[in-house]
Structure formats: structure tokens, C-alpha cells
């Protein structure tokens, strides 16, 4: 029985997705069951298979193995319906730089047969606040404006699902904040969003996160749950001489990773006793130690360390 789109509460429901290019496995058995109306963050180091997974979900790549539906449509057989109901924003700006803003939007409006076209495009430009620059070529826009234009273009046909592939890479903090305000506005209107990112503050704005490494799904859940389930213990050191401390701590038993956060040093591990033993010599004057709740970044670094070397086959 094929699930009917309107009765299916999962926007993305895929199981065992595998993608091989030649003899290289890029995605190795990923399951995602994402309910409608949520914002999910897609995280993982570079080359972990995030883009490939997104492309398989929206029908741009055919999975080597695995099945599933996107908005109730089969990802293998109903790519055309999926394309009509989703908006996909590519990692690299992919609208036509030698077309003006208006011409780009009109092209998209024509492809989706949006009517009345003029009004739809006018409204989109107005929402963007770019009416006065509508005849400017896209290539002349700054990175932040390009991203906003791309978001406007991929949401113009009122998709039910939005797939955003590192939409804010290389965009300044102010523009990023505005971008995310826009995303939250869209989800309030019932849109489902899957967004890949490297920014922790963006991950924390998501209802749930999915963490991928080496083409495999490592963990998923709310930010709090992911932090909790990591069972990570983090100590923070502040004060003079912190910079000199890190090299002396590296490699000691129980100290899984050591990283600077601003002027502070975070030392994380999973065995409190072992950690305290190793840290003992550095409980000295001028350095204040304190146990803190690990940040998402601590958890991710830990996950990356745990995932270890890339296990995907490169024969």
C-alpha cells in the first residue's frame, strides 16, 4: 500500500539509503523519519554525506540501495511529484548570475506555472525588499543577498518541504540571523525544513538534529537529548596560563579531547574518576576549574573522535 500524501505525517521517511559512486560508498545506510512541520538540522563534518543524502531525498540522485518516501512520494519513482512539492536550495548559489533578480524569479515562476506570474514575482520581490534592485544582475549581489534571493526563489511555489544545503555558509552573522528568522516564519506557516549546517548556533535553533559522519547516521534527537545521551563530562579552565596547559594535558588517560572556547579551555571525557586524576596536577594557582554542561560543539567533537577514521571503502 502506497501511503497517501495527505495522510502521511512523515515529511521524510527513508530507510537504508545507500549511495555509491563507482566503488566509493558515500552514504551508507541512512534512516530518516522526519515529521511534518518541524525544522531539523543536518550536521556532520565535511564529506560526511549530507549533500548526497539531501540529493537522494529530492530525486536528484538515485539511491544505490534503500527505499523511502518524501512527502508520501516514492523517492525512486515519483521524483517529478517530489520536485513540485519541495524547494531545494543548493550549497553553491545556483541561480543565473547573468539574469536579473526579476528574470530569475520569472523563470522559476514559469517553470512551476505560478499564476498570476507578475503578481507572484512582485510579491516575492517585495517580501525580499529588493524591488528597487529587481533589474540588477544576480552576479552583482553580495553573498547574503544571494542567499536570500535563493530562499525566496525556492519557496515561491509554496513547497511543503524545504531542503537547505548549508544555506548560510560564508554569510555574515547579521544576514544569518535574518535568514533564520525567515525560516522560522516559514515553519509557522506549516513548512517542514531540513537544513544542513556547520554552525552550532544554527543547530541549536533546530527542533531536532541528525548527525552524520562517514556516510553513517551517528545520532539524532533534540539538542538536549543529544547532549545528554553523549554522557560527556566537561571541565572548563579559565585564567592565566590556560594556553600553556593544553599541551601538557594531551594524551592523558580519560581526557578525550581538549579544545579552546574563547579564552577558556574545555576538557571532555566520559570517566570522571580518570579525568580528575589526570587533571589533578593542573589544579594550580591562577587557573579556575569548573564542571560545566557540555556544549553541542563539545559533543560533536567527541562524536567525531568516536567515529574515528573513515570506514567507508575506498578500494
Amino acid at each position, binding site marked *: 500500500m502506497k501511503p497517501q500524501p495527505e495522510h502521511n505525517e512523515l515529511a521524510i521517511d527513508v530507510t537504508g539509503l545507500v549511495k555509491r559512486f563507482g566503488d566509493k560508498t558515500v552514504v551508507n545506510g541512512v534512516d530518516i523519519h522526519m515529521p511534518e512541520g518541524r525544522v531539523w538540522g543536518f550536521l556532520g563534518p565535511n564529506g560526511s554525506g549530507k549533500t548526497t543524502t539531501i*540529493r537522494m531525498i*529530492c*530525486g*536528484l*540522485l*538515485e539511491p544505490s540501495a534503500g527505499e523511502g518516501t518524501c512527502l508520501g512520494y516514492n523517492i525512486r519513482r515519483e*521524483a*517529478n511529484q517530489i*520536485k*513540485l512539492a519541495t524547494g*531545494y536550495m*543548493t550549497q*553553491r*548559489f*545556483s*541561480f*543565473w*548570475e547573468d539574469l536579473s533578480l526579476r528574470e530569475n524569479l520569472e523563470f*522559476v515562476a514559469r*517553470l*512551476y506555472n505560478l499564476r498570476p506570474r507578475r503578481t507572484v514575482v512582485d510579491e516575492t520581490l517585495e517580501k525580499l525588499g529588493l524591488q528597487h534592485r529587481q533589474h540588477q544582475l544576480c552576479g552583482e549581489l553580495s553573498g547574503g543577498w544571494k542567499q536570500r534571493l535563493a530562499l525566496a526563489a525556492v519557496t515561491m511555489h509554496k513547497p511543503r518541504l524545504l531542503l537547505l544545503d548549508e544555506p548560510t555558509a560564508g554569510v555574515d552573522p547579521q544576514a544569518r540571523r535574518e535568514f533564520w528568522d525567515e525560516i522560522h516564519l516559514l515553519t509557522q506557516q506549516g513548512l517542514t525544513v531540513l537544513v544542513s549546517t556547520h554552525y552550532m548556533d544554527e543547530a541549536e535553533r533546530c527542533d531536532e538534529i541528525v548527525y552524520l559522519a562517514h556516510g553513517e547516521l551517528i545520532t539524532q534527537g533534540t539538542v538536549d537529548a543529544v547532549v545528554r545521551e553523549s554522557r560527556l563530562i566537561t571541565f572548563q579552565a579559565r585564567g592565566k596560563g590556560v594556553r600553556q596547559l593544553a599541551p601538557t594535558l594531551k594524551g592523558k588517560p580519560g581526557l578525550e579531547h581538549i579544545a579552546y572556547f574563547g579564552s577558556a579551555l574545555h576538557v571532555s571525557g566520559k570517566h570522571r574518576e580518570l579525568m580528575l586524576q589526570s587533571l589533578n596536577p593542573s589544579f594550580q594557582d591562577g587557573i579556575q576549574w569548573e564542571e560545566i554542561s557540555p556544549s553541542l560543539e563539545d559533543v560533536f567533537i567527541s562524536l567525531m573522535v568516536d567515529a574515528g577514521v573513515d570506514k567507508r571503502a575506498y578500494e
Partner: protein
Amino acid sequence: MSTTLDSVQRIVAVLIKELIQMRRDRTTFAMMLGVPIMQLVLFGFAINLDPKHLPAAIYTEDNSPMVRRLVSAFEHSGYYDFVSVASSPQQGNALLERGEVSFFVYIPAGFTAQLVQGKRPQILVSADATDPAAASNAIGRLDGIIDNALRTELKGPLAHLQATPSPVEVVVHAKYNPEAITQYNIVPGLLGVILTMTSVMITAMAMTREQERGNLENLLAMPVRPVEVMVGKITPYILVGIVQAVVILSAAHFLFSVPFFGSLALLAFGILLFVITNLSLGFTFSTVAKNQMQAMQMTFFFFLPSILLSGFMFPFRGMPHWAQTIGECLPLTHFLRVVRGIMLKGNGLEQLHGEFSVLGIFILVFGTMAMLRYKNTLD
């Protein structure tokens, strides 16, 4: 001194980087080796400025040993290959009109008898002079061929006939371009060459540009089918091709006074077929090429033999068989026959349906290839 050394160091750094990139860029590498080899082979072996073994037809109403001797002298000259024996003068001319033969030799009844009586009988040689270069050498040798043949025959009591002027009157009829004006051949040919170059290149580049700039991924993510993309992309360039054709044909008429004997509508149809052929070929190239540079190189690789082996620059019939076979696979070869046939010979569909069918087959083959190669996914 150290600044000079530093400078050398930096030059070496750039040089090494260039060498590495050159090695990685396979198509450029192939081109650097392939183009000289291709040119050597084509110019060295295929092209012949003294075209020999040109196909000819014969019709003779006299079958004496003297005539047979003459016919074999034609063949021995190396210029004429009698590939068909016509059943009437009309049929011989029709063969010429269709371009199946370059010459038609007609020896009328009573030739031997008149020769023996010293009445200077006529031999009629009709030549397809659309390409003056192809016909001129063979025509130039005519008197020599005939005189040589007769010298061995006219002995004893007939020896007095050897005296000048020649005992035979050779009537040469250079058809389609009697004044041997090169422009009449080149200008219509240029129409084909220009259409080939621009249409193939423009489409190949336009498609790879999308890929290079990342637009393709966006296009694929939107609800548009490959055939829709292809038709949408090609149609504007059909218009460009039509504009080019109008410009060249106007120049042919007003600037070069090239005659136009055939039907303009038929030529328009031929141009349309030819433009679509080239555009679908360009589209196929673009599905193979990874970037604009490669698309450009592939176009060049295709363009070079098109110019050399199609009969545009050098007489098609003068090339060896293998080169003619390659030439038959190039759309330009067939289009040249269409455009020259219509303009200079007044050919109609009756003579050209074969060439039109070949162009149609090219469209089918290239179009299918393009559609199969252009995928709906990024795989």
C-alpha cells in the same frame, strides 16, 4: 644576485604547477597530440590538389576498336574512372546532375568513319564544374589523352591524320559554372561551414556553462524534463542559424552574384534540417564535455575534418576512399551537396532526396544520443 635566484625559483614554481595541470587536463593533452596527427594525416594523405580517379559515365554510339582504344586511354590517364555506362545521353546528363559522376563522355554515331575520312569528328565531354578545382586538371588533360591514344592507332595509311590540328574535335561543356568562378563554389559552401561552426559551438558551450556554474543542479531540482530543456535551449539558436543563413545568402546574391537556379523553399528546408543536425550534435557534445573548455575543444576536433573532408576546401572526389567514407559521416558533406545542388545546378527533391534523408538520419541519431546522455539526475 639573490633576487635573480628568487625570481628563477618563482618561475620554476609556476612552471611546475602548469605542468601538473597540463597533465591533469586530459582533453587539452589529447588535443595537443591529436590535432597535429589529425592534420598530418588529413593534409598528408587525404587532400589531393590534383584529384584523380574521378567518377565518369560514358555513352557511345560507336563501338569500333578505335573507340574502345579511346575509352581505355581515358581510364589509363588516371583521371577518369568510368563507373557507369549510360543508356542514353539524357541518362548520362542526369547522372551528372545528381552528382553521381563528375564527367559524362559522349561519343556520337559514325565517329570512327568520320575520323578515318579526316572529318574531325566530335567527342562531347560534359563536366560538373561546380567545383572548378576538381574538374580543371582532368579537362586540361583531355587533348593529350586523345592524341596519345590516336597516335598508336593512326598508323600506316592513316598516319597523315596525325597532323595538327588534332584529328578529333573535343567539345567540353563545363556545366553549372562554365566560367569556373571559384566564389560560386565557395560562397554556398561557406553557408554550411559557418552554420556548422557556430551552431555546434554555441549549443555545446551553452549547456556546459550551466554545468560549470552550478545552474544544472538547480534546473534538475525543478520540474522540467530533459526534452523540454533541450527544445527550449535549441530553439533560439535555430533562429540564430536562420539569421546567419539570410545574411550569407544575401551576400552571395548581391555581393558575389552567385546564381540561384533551384527552389529557395527547398534550400530553406535544407538549412533548417542542417541547423537542427548541428544543434543536436552540439547538445550531445555538451553532455560529454565537463566544462566549456572541453566543449570548445570537442567542437574544434569536429570542425577540422568537417572543413577538410567535406568537399568544402578540397575536391571530395579527389580524396582516397577512406577519407571519402569519413566525409560521408559528416553532416557538412551532405549539406554542401544540397546547397550547391540547389543553387548552382537547380537540383530539386528528385535529385537530393538522398542527401535530405541522410540529414534526417543524423538528427535522429544525434538527438537520441543527446537525450540518452542528458540525465534527469546528477548521477
